[in-house]
């Protein structure tokens, strides 16, 4: 029992937790931006698959790692554009369109993978991002290595949270994004195009989701394989609700979640097969549902979420 408890104080545990949290942070921030603008993006799961592949493939073809991240982001933004076009000016059901985007993005990815790499049996590898210890900060016991001995993409995740929070609350464009998710006619009346703000937000959010996917192939692992996203997109959607649509709270949610995930893997090793491993693998999903139930009642969601807007209608 003490053994199970001591895990919490090992640096390796927290290092793993932050590593697991990183893709979720990108994905959660991406979904948060979309939903703050009033658009639910269920395309997230597929967009992450596409980002994971295109980022990785760019590097596999000899591109620079950061070029890979950029290509992944652009891939995400393109699917975001499609989702935005279908749901904003056309006003299609965000649920159905989102599922459609997920199906399209993942099947296109698998199709492309099979065309580009037809003969491979075991997935080829790339040289991924390496951990970089931030001087001084990484010497803090336990937390130092956990937070500051990670790959540059994890640092980018931190920066993303700060940037999303700053933009949403401190800049004109952020005010416009929040207003468009609360009451689009308020934005229209002030001479800003609701369509442009919403599509822009969905594209930016989708770009972040794709970087989240790319983290898996370019930082956590070094190759692309099918099913590697494995529900992380859906979990990010739950984390947005859990974080009450606020970047800071969502970050805490992502880290808590990842810590739990890292913990169950270690617990699994300790219990040594007495409990079926599937139980442990289920826990993240169960936890997400529990988190939703806990916060659902008092969540103040963006008022215009999932409601299409028609110009001149109020």
């Amino acid at each position: 029992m003490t053994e199970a408890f001591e895990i919490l104080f090992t640096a390796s545990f927290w290092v793993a937790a932050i590593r697991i949290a990183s893709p979720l942070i990108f994905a959660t921030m991406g979904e948060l931006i979309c939903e703050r603008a009033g658009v639910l993006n269920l395309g997230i799961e597929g967009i992450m698959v596409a980002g994971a592949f295109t980022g990785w493939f760019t590097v596999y073809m000899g591109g620079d790692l950061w070029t890979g991240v950029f290509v992944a982001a652009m891939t995400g933004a393109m699917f975001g554009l499609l989702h935005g076009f279908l749901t904003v000016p056309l006003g299609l059901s965000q649920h159905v369109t989102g599922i459609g985007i997920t199906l399209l993005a993942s099947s296109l990815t698998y199709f492309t993978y099979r065309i580009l790499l037809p003969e491979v049996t075991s997935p080829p590898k790339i040289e991924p991002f390496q951990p970089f210890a931030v001087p001084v900060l990484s010497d803090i016991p336990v937390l130092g290595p956990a937070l500051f001995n990670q790959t540059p993409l994890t640092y980018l995740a931190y920066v993303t949270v700060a940037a999303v929070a700053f933009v949403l609350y401190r800049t004109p464009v952020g005010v416009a994004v929040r207003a468009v998710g609360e009451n689009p006619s308020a934005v229209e009346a002030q001479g800003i195009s609701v369509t442009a703000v919403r599509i822009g937000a969905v594209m930016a959010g989708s770009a972040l989701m794709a970087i989240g996917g790319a983290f898996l192939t370019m930082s956590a692992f070094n190759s692309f394989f099918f099913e590697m996203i494995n529900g992380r997109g859906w979990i990010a959607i739950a984390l947005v609700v859990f974080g009450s649509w606020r970047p800071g709270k969502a970050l805490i949610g992502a880290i808590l979640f990842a810590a739990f995930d890292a913990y169950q893997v270690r617990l699994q090793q300790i219990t040594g097969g007495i409990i079926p491993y599937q139980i442990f693998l289920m826990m993240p999903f169960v936890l997400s549902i529990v988190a939703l139930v806990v916060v659902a009642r008092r969540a103040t969601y963006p008022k215009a979420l999932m409601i299409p807007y028609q110009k001149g209608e109020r």
Partner: protein
Amino acid sequence: MDHAEGPEAEIVLRLAGMTKRFGPLVANDAISLSLARGEVVALLGENGAGKTTLMNILFGHYTADEGQIEAFGKALPPGDPNAALAAGIGMVHQHFTLADQMTVLENIVLGTRPLWSFNLGKAEARRRIRELATGYGLDVDPDRMITELSVGERQRVEILKALYREARILILDEPTAVLTPMETDALFATLKKLVAAGLSVIFISHKLGEVQSVSDRVVVLRGGKLAGERVTSDATRRELAELMVGGQLPVNEIGPPTPGATLFELRGVATRTMGGAALKQVSMQLRGGEITGLAGISGNGQAALAALIAGTLEASEGNIIVHGETARHWSPRTALDKGLGRIPEDRHATGMIGDMSVAENVISEAYRSPRFSRFGFLDWTAAASFAGDIIKAYDVKCPSPEARVRLLSGGNMQKLILGRALDGNPDIILASQPTRGLDVGAVAYVHARLIEARDRGAAVLLISEDLDEIQTLSDRILVIHRGHLSKPSLRGELSVMELGELMAGHGVAEGAEHAA
């Protein structure tokens, strides 16, 4: 307001030959209009006359099929909301365009700075807002959330939004509909100050009294056409009314009431909020053969009271007593079973299911009765013939019982709701904002039906934000303020100003404990 009259005044806005068609409907038919510097022009017309369409064109939300707009001597490009704003035209919409979970300041600065700057310029904005607020009597704290503001305060934010952008022309769409008489006076005082500062105002309304007290000139629209134009001081009220309606105003005769027994009673009822005030210890009685009017400013608990009686909101304490029996359980179903007829506030959101047919909609309260279903199977023939009956009896204009309700006009939708609610002659009737957004003919029709129900002995509760309507129809008047009810007063007992005092909360809370 005697500034800038006469031909030498500078014309700041000119609309020439504006025409807008929606399919076969001509919403605006060659309307021309001009506005001088420092002038208040009232745009008078009933619902559906084309006022809102005209303003939506001016603001670039719609593009006109024909016609030109000129602001300060320059042509305004069509279909560009930014052009109107940049030309110095500001609009206060009837339904506020504010983001609720954001501050006053954020709402005001929205769109005034380049989107991609790193700074909201809050300090400077705060200073300017305070300056404008004190200058024009528009007191609001820039750092409060919109949700925390009263309706009157929200309107001030809307005006501030326009002034912050240095609007020189201000358009107000039915601005008094949501205000107390005192707030209305304050608004008029603000308008005077604005005009004195050289702004021009277009004041959209269908209320003759306020049009006469606030404007220099009146432009009347009817059925999408320009019906006439008058200098306010030269026009009589009657003349304006006839221009607006195109004939005599329909008048309903209402005889003296013959009050009967108490049919419905609330005793010490409290509820949670319904997007306005919650009810606090509310007691009231509705007697047969009487129309009880509930006056009050929007958001003071009318929605909660209506939802409570309709059965969609539960009481957290207190009792509902129907026909002398305390109801143990109260839901839409029990309300219907006890013989309530209910007309909801919002036809589109609550009253009707737009994507279903007329027949499917009229049976929605009675579909489980043997009249419309047997062994779980619906009798569509019976439903269609019932719909046909309502269409005939209530003179609903619709192609067939199979037509989708979404395609009907507001007046026809309301007639369907009346038909459904009054089917079987209910003796308790809840009418919540029953004439909102209807034209004069439809309003008169709804009123006639309510009076008819009262005359056959039904107890009618009329909830309305239109004080004129309350005063015309009600035998007894209650005023609601922040979830408390005033003592009832009889028809004609209190003046408009006295009712206004109650609506503003003077004397309501004290009276609540003793309310009959």
